[in-house]
């Protein structure tokens, strides 16, 4: 063919474009999205009950000392005790979490995402599959705190604020 050189160049350029497109998509998948980040290896499930979970969502992180050791796998509601039942999916390598661990719902920054922070207790026994964290602290709800603050201010001025 007379134009075989041209078509070879064309094919090479097309091949390069397809390769670049593939690389770009791979980059997006691994570097930009959650596909390359936190691996979803299912570990063991632990239950925790909260009076109020605020803005906690499924897949919210579970951390200990700030290190991510799992995520929230489901959120349910107990209609007899009116409590939220949160199932935590902890990674298998973190299998030495004491049974008297304290679970708190914390907020990243002032208005950020909510997550569960675990404070380890001193027990020698460790949490197993399906065990329950009994000591919990509810989410920080801004309106309640502001309400309490205003209430205590009002009380202060009505009792002691005379002068």
């Amino acid at each position, binding site marked *: 063919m007379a134009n075989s050189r041209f078509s070879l160049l064309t094919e090479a350029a097309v091949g390069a474009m397809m390769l*670049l497109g593939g690389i*770009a998509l791979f980059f*997006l*998948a691994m*570097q930009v*999205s959650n596909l390359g980040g936190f691996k979803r290896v299912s570990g063991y499930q632990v239950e925790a009950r909260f009076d109020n979970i605020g803005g906690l969502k499924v897949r919210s992180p579970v951390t200990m000392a700030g290190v991510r050791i799992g995520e929230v796998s489901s959120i349910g509601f107990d209609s007899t005790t009116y409590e939220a039942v949160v199932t935590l999916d902890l990674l298998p390598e973190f299998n030495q979490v004491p049974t008297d661990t304290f679970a708190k719902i914390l907020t990243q920054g002032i208005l950020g995402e909510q997550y569960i922070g675990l404070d380890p207790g001193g027990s020698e026994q460790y949490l197993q599959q399906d065990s329950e964290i009994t000591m919990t602290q509810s989410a920080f709800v801004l309106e309640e705190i502001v309400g309490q603050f205003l209430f205590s201010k009002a009380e202060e001025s009505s009792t002691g604020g005379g002068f």
Partner: protein
Amino acid sequence: MNWFASIGRRGINVLRNLGRALLLLMAILRAPHGLVTRFREFLAQLYSVGVLSLLIISVSGVFVGMVLGLQGYYILSRFAAESTLGVFIAASLVRELGPVVTALLFAGRAGSALTAEIGLMKATEQLSALEMMAVNPVSRLLVPRFFAGVVSVPLLAAMFNALGVLGGYFVGVGLMDVDTGTFWAQMQSQVDFDKDIINGVIKSVVFGVICTWIALFQGYEAVPTSEGISRATTRTVVHSSLAVLGMDFVLTALMFGD
């Protein structure tokens, strides 16, 4: 009376054109064997439609990403939320700006060229000559061009997104001193592969179909004069841009409005 008739005539014309466009699309889709028999042509079209659009797509991607980085940083730093700059850049690129801007650039860069090419073939009676020789111009000419467009737009959009993220990274981390770790970590935790990236790819495939379809239809139906071709080229860019923007709204509502 005449006034009503003129409105009616326009309406009928719009519907007639839509019908013809749909018939052309069906004719293209019914002859995908043109892709196999004309594989060389398909590659050549991928080159002229896709590879030659690389430069404009890459440069626009980098600059759009850099502008997002700057604007995002100015606004987010007011709320002490610079750590979410990566999310802001990646999500807006992958979900909306990547597919849409790529499609708009593609319509201007490649769609207009396709229309002019097909339109000139029609004006110089090459299409009639093909038919005279019992060669189907749809499978011979339109099928390779159509699939070249449909394949290139998602690839170009992926490159636009990737370069945009890198441009935003350059501005955010390089110039504005956002922390590298937070930039990527926040992005990875907030951008979902299935919901964001796959939906973005689906969007760009749809836009590729729309842009190439409109371009080929306008060329194929162009009035075979120099004025007709110039009008058809203009209509390609205008119609493609409007269709892409309108379709983007519909797709976004379907994909992200749960």
